[in-house]
């Protein structure tokens, strides 16, 4: 099982600039669906890439599903030359995304975030309207149910109780 707590603690301890998106963001907003990995959109700046490298280095990240023995080096240059990384670590699965369909990059998503404290750490999470929008934009049939739940959550929030 992915250790969400420790992954978030490590990232925030290094002051990494990131936004929680995906299924875990849904959980934060109140969705009941489970997820296997932590999806984050990170700021693609040299300083931030270095912070990500430092934060995850002890967890020995490796491309998920890739055969063992690849010449994969966990260093800033590796992140600089790539964009989206789906990784398996000692703490579980984490997806590092430079941008997401329908949402864009960290800086483009920033106005659509909420600040929250989880595991005692201050983080940014994609807000509910944007989360619905990006899941919709991804257009994956497997997400239909999840989108419907997020839309229902949005309805529940906007209705007086």
């Amino acid at each position, binding site marked *: *099982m992915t250790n*969400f*707590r420790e992954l978030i603690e490590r990232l925030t301890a290094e002051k990494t600039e990131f936004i929680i998106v995906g299924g875990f963001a849904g*959980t*934060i907003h*109140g*969705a*009941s669906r*489970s997820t296997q990995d932590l999806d984050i959109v990170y700021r693609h700046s040299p300083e931030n890439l270095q912070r990500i490298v430092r934060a995850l280095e002890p967890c020995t990240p490796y491309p998920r599903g890739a055969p063992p023995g690849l010449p994969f080096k966990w260093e800033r240059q590796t992140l600089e030359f790539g964009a989206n990384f789906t990784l398996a670590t000692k703490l579980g699965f984490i997806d590092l995304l430079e941008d997401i369909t329908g949402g864009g990059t960290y800086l483009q998503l*920033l*106005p*659509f*975030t*909420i*600040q*929250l*404290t*989880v*595991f005692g750490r201050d983080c*940014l*999470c994609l*807000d*509910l*309207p*944007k989360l*619905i*929008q990006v899941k*919709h934009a991804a*257009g*994956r*049939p497997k997400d*239909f*149910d999840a*989108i*419907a*739940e997020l*839309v*229902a*959550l*949005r309805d*529940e*929030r*906007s*209705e007086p*109780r």
Partner: protein
Amino acid sequence: MVNRFSTGREQWHIPAIAVDWDCTGSYDRGMEPTAPLNPKDDKIEYLDPVIEAYKKDIDRTMLRENLKKTVQERVDAFIDFMKAREECERAGEAARERR
């Protein structure tokens, strides 16, 4: 307005109705918007007939209970669920091996 969904092999198009949507609903304890909740270009929401169809089967009682919780309580409940699921998987695997 058209929404596009790709299943990998083909692409199909579903007409959607654009409506104004103003979510002025409350945000939860421990959640602070970093910008106005409704930036102008985010105001258009689409009524997607597929999503609307899926919405009918959503258990809203569970969502209402979740919304009463703080963010940390939701995350804790999720982690408890994941641990329980893992335990069930282990138990199932052990039972299959015994047979």
